[in-house]
């Protein structure tokens, strides 16, 4: 290392190496975030140059909004089902695809494919599947469940969102689980077999405890993405029919940019931030505890 004695020299090195990153980071992430918190206490309408301080009234207005709560509860339900389904299916696929099956690399690559393509495109693809393919299939082969259009029925439209999300992310989480599974020491598994453990016992007593770190990451990612989903919601249902599938991100976007209630929208966004931060930090905290115990 160079000998830098003066403060000036230190500052120069620092500015060259870290200056641009720190500047971009602060102006793009931190400044808007702090300014956003400030805006929630004002009556800013998105247009006027001045705004007055209004205390907590934006939060009160957000919390009094029934549509907001419907959307929030629906998001919780959506996150619950997608997190469980994605992780269970992904782990199962990863488990089968690390058992030395013929062509397992081909399978891995195949299941990963949806993750290469953006949510809006995936949403449009499935909109076509639900509107044309499934309805055609249901009518021609007399399968009642498919014979009407899923996306025009509030309950089925919700499940359509869940299905497409699970389809999208399972391959990604599968890759994470595969990475965890191949890192399990072979001799541990062999020792368990010699001790007479069958494959179910090996899974339960050796593999699952060692896979806790992978579960931590994968559940964290699915939780975060679930709360923040926007693209698929927009392209597949756009919140319809009649706002029945408007998840929280889309709701925030619409509050701010469609109904021009910028400060209320931002108050809802800050609420979302607290929910996501709390849920993910608790999840990581408890899974880390599980890791230590093992």
């Amino acid at each position, binding site marked *: *290392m*160079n000998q830098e004695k003066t403060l000036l020299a*230190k500052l120069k*090195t*620092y500015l060259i*190496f*870290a200056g641009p*990153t*720190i500047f*971009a*980071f602060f102006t*793009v*992430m*931190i*400044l808007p*975030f702090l*300014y*956003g918190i400030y*805006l929630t206490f004002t009556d*800013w309408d*998105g247009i006027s140059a001045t705004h007055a301080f209004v205390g907590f009234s934006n939060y009160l207005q957000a919390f009094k909004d029934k549509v907001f709560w419907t959307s929030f509860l629906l998001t919780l339900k959506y996150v619950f089902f997608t997190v469980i389904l994605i992780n269970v299916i992904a782990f199962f696929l990863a488990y089968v695809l690390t*058992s030395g*099956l013929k*062509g397992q*690399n081909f399978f891995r*690559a*195949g299941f*990963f*494919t949806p*993750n*290469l*393509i*953006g*949510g*809006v*495109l995936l949403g*449009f*693809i499935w909109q*076509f*599947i639900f509107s*044309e*393919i499934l309805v*055609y*299939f249901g009518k021609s082969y007399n399968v009642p469940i498919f014979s009407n259009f899923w996306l025009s029925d509030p309950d089925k439209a919700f499940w359509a969102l869940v299905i497409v999300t699970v*389809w999208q992310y399972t391959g990604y989480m599968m*890759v*994470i689980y595969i990475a965890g599974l191949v890192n399990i020491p072979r001799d541990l598994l062999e020792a368990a077999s010699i001790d007479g453990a069958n494959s179910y016992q090996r899974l339960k007593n050796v593999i699952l405890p060692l896979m806790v770190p992978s579960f931590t*990451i994968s559940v964290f*990612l699915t939780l*975060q993405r679930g709360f923040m989903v926007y693209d698929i919601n927009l*392209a597949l249902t756009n919140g319809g029919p009649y706002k029945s599938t408007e998840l929280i991100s889309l709701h*925030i*976007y619409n509050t*701010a940019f469609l109904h021009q209630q910028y400060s209320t929208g*931002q108050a809802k*966004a800050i609420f*979302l*931030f607290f929910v*996501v*931060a709390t849920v993910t930090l608790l999840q990581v905290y408890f899974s880390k505890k599980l890791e230590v115990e093992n």
Partner: protein
Amino acid sequence: MEKNNRILNGIKFFALSIFLVLYIFPFFIVLINSFKERKEILSNPLKLPSVLNLSNYIDAFTKMNYIHAFLNSLIITAFSVFLITLLSSMTAYIFVRKKWKFNQFMFFFMVASMIIPFQGIMIPLVKIYGSIGMMNSKWALIYMYVGFGASLAVFMYHGFIKSIPLELEEAATIDGSSQLQTFFKIVFPLLKPVTTTIAILDILWIWNDFLLPYLVLMAPEQRTLPLSVFYFYGTYTVDYGRAMAALMLAIIPIIIVYLLMQNQIIEGVSKGAIK
């Protein structure tokens, strides 16, 4: 025992194959319908096209302003990823090598910020950058990607640089090279595995990103590929054949890259998750 295993593997293989076919089926549906006319789709969307008619593609290609959108996406992704990797690796290097209190604080601050969801930032972001006239420009968008992508990249580089022995750099310093030279000659080449991982994760993110460009880029000539598909689809919803061709046009480049580099991409994703 041996025979049982082989039968079991056969069953697994068969079940997985069916599952994979179902998994890939949506793409196949888009492909076959992209060659059809509207009437043909409505009469039977599951049938193979009677003729390989490319007119949907030609229509979609011109109306989407495909070349333009493709180049916009390419420029935005390439510059953003280049700047994120270059600037973040330098930052992580100074964070690791200079154990100042301030550096430790900044590192912690950047890692903690990763918890902020984009929705918490987007409304004030639009206001701030709108008021200083930085909207509707690719370069502003690239700048934002650097700000949003920095935290994760610095975090990943930080973990890797910690494991590089200091002796390598000391030799270079004795030979009289400056810190910047040492970094680019010695350290940066060693970072190649992490750089690849970060580049893959960021390319997947930025190439496919929708909401940020949707908020920042207004003018039609600025649109990225996902944006131009979005607007095209909005205009031609009823004209399924063209819409499917537009989707195919947006998917094809990614699939080509995937076929060439699937191992690196999957490895990048799995390495990126082990933090």
